[in-house]
């Protein structure tokens, strides 16, 4: 199979390239030979970039196949321009053994829609007590360990994880949340929670753990990754630690970058997420942190939930929003279009940086001859309405009803067109 992506604006943050060019794809790789005999795909008006990489996806399989499967989730990812996702460990059973990791790997291979890097739990059954077999799991292909959904409450356990994982160059990803402060909370603690009568989650709940974990990363020299930063204080803590040379990376979700707590005034459970969407000041600090590189990556925290679970009373609905199919468009609409970050920085945060954190060498560019052809192309000006159905099995999107700018047209995984003209192939 050989085809020419013709006339796109190639934006390749890994090489710093931004120019109009044709890109040849041949035998699964970016080619540099003759385009003779290649079919042409007209990419006029499109931006061609490395395939996106998501550090934080909940594929729900095994266990909650009614919400999402590896197949439906990776198809949703491809439709959103992703060529790799990192699948979180809080499945049922928990991904704390090689058996579960291998099952996810096998399912992903069969689905073939995008690469899946399964995350393993840090502690057995996410209980925060005893470490999983980090060495064996790392040898089985796990690059990231996370108890996401739960925070490792005992400092000593996290210290051991950070220290032990150094032998395997693994990254420890923390869902930062001090449990006793967050218990029972429904949204960000502030003026709006006080008016809505919803129990608040104070920013300090996250910041206490971020501060603690940064100290432990400094102590151990282990690789810490902080999941879904939500508060201005957390951004400041990470910024300071990076200046001191602590080995830390951080991610932020599109919904924390685009929404604020006031948006919850109608008790829309699709906006109930964990950590909660916080104040205008917090959102602004997250945007600034992404712009200046304090926050390395944008990650979706794609969290599918069944309609009947979300169509409940607010305090009974589970937290989470789906995000794979809207991530790029939200970043383009809410950050690039208003000039808060450049297009190049957006694509870096959505592909190069997460690929580096995951050590996913085949992803994130550069788009150079001989490299695996993991690419995506999008129309930066196309407007579309976010509405069901989605490729995801679920439809709990915090962005339902919003018109976004920027639509993924083609997604190419190792030279194969997974998405063509905005549609999943087969």
């Amino acid at each position, binding site marked *: 199979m050989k085809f020419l992506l013709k006339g796109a604006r190639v934006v390749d943050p890994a090489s710093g390239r931004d120019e109009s060019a044709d890109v040849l794809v041949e035998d699964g790789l970016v080619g540099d030979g003759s385009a003779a005999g290649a079919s042409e795909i007209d990419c006029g008006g499109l931006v061609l970039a490395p395939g996106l990489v998501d550090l934080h996806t909940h594929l729900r399989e095994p266990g909650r196949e009614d919400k999402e499967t590896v197949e439906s989730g990776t198809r949703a990812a491809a439709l959103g321009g992703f060529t790799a996702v990192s699948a979180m460990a809080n499945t049922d059973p928990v991904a704390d053994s090689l058996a579960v990791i291998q099952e996810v790997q096998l399912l992903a291979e069969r689905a073939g829609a995008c690469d899946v890097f399964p995350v393993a739990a840090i502690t057995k059954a996410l209980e925060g007590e005893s470490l999983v077999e980090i060495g064996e799991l790392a040898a089985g292909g796990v690059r990231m360990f996370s108890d996401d959904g739960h925070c490792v409450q005992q400092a000593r356990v996290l210290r051991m994880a950070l220290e032990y994982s150094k032998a395997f160059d693994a990254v420890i990803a923390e869902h930062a949340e001090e449990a006793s402060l967050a218990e029972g909370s429904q949204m960000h603690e*502030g*003026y709006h*929670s*006080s008016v809505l*009568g919803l129990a608040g989650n104070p920013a300090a709940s996250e910041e206490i753990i971020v501060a603690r974990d940064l100290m432990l990363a400094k102590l151990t020299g282990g690789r810490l990754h902080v999941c879904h930063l939500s508060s201005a204080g957390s951004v400041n803590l990470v910024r300071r630690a990076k200046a001191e040379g602590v080995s830390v990376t951080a991610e932020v979700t599109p919904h924390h970058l685009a929404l604020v707590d006031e948006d919850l005034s109608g*008790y829309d459970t699709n906006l109930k997420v964990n950590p909660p969407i916080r104040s205008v000041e917090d959102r602004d600090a997250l945007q600034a942190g992404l712009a200046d590189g304090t926050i390395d990556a944008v990650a979706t925290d794609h969290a599918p939930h069944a309609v*009947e679970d979300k*169509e409940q*009373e*607010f305090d009974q609905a589970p937290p989470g929003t789906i995000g794979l199919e809207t991530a790029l468009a939200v970043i383009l609409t809410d950050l690039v279009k208003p000039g808060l970050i450049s297009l190049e920085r957006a694509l870096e945060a959505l592909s190069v940086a997460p690929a580096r954190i995951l050590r996913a060498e085949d992803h994130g560019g550069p788009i150079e001859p001989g490299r695996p052809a993991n690419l995506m192309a999008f129309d930066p000006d196309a407007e579309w309405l976010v509405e069901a159905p989605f490729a995801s099995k679920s439809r709990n999107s915090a962005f339902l009803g919003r018109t976004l700018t920027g639509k993924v047209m083609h997604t190419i995984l190792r030279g194969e067109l997974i998405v063509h003209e905005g549609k999943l192939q087969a």
Partner: protein
Amino acid sequence: MIKHLLSVNQLSREDVTRILDTAESFREVGTRVIKKVPALRGRTVVNLFYENSTRTRISFELAAKRLSADVINFTASGSSVSKGESLKDTALTLEAMGADAIVIRHSSSGAAHTLARFISGSVLNAGDGTHEHPTQALLDLYTIREKLGRIEGLRTVIVGDVMHSRVARSLTFSLARMGAEVTLVGPPTLIPPDAPSWGAAVTYDLDEVLPKADVCYMLRVQRERQRRQYFPSVREYSRLFGLSRDRVAALPEHAMIMHPGPMNRGVEIASDVADLPQSVITEQVTNGIAVRMSLLYLMLGGAASGEAA
């Protein structure tokens, strides 16, 4: 008039005045031998109560019956809800049976909003979690206006567990809207830090504000708050924030003592204080029926089908 009553913040000053004026005309119905008018004949009102309640449910039931509406009482225990039926399905079922209005009491904040998304009839919030209790606030405004002749410019003090009180929210928002001064008093752990943005002053010293208060409104404090460390002991709470005889003596003579019930006698209010003539707690209950009649009448378009009273 509004279609749903979910929060007092939906109501303008004019709306509140109209509701209270209409209640005034219904108040007289309750004094008749035949306590009934035909205004809502043929309409169906469902009381959907997910939480136990005596006064609010009976008050709504009497209000609807005095307007000649058909009333269905639906409580969560012993119903399809205890079989796991969702709020949505319960709502759709009740609507399919022709409910014109659903009065909902629920332990989850926002439950009335959620219900309003599922049905086409009117929703009246009869207390949702720690969010609001709009009809309680309106009956309190009615009682204050009746006793003191006005609301604007009055100095009101609301004392206790503001954090977890739906009454405190509805009352603070609506008193502020009507031009009264509101001061919230309680331990800092039970007053949301953002309460000053509600349009209220905050103090932790009850004795400081009593001498100038026109209305002293005591909130119920649940003993379980002490177990969650909101205050060190019921004894200390009662000494710092309870309305004792001595504290009543510090109030101006004309000041009203109010409580939404049910009272914890001996905790937030001394037993003999609750029974003083300044205490209007039973009048609040009586006025509740007239105010709820007024709301049902205005919201269900009763004006089109008959005379008010």
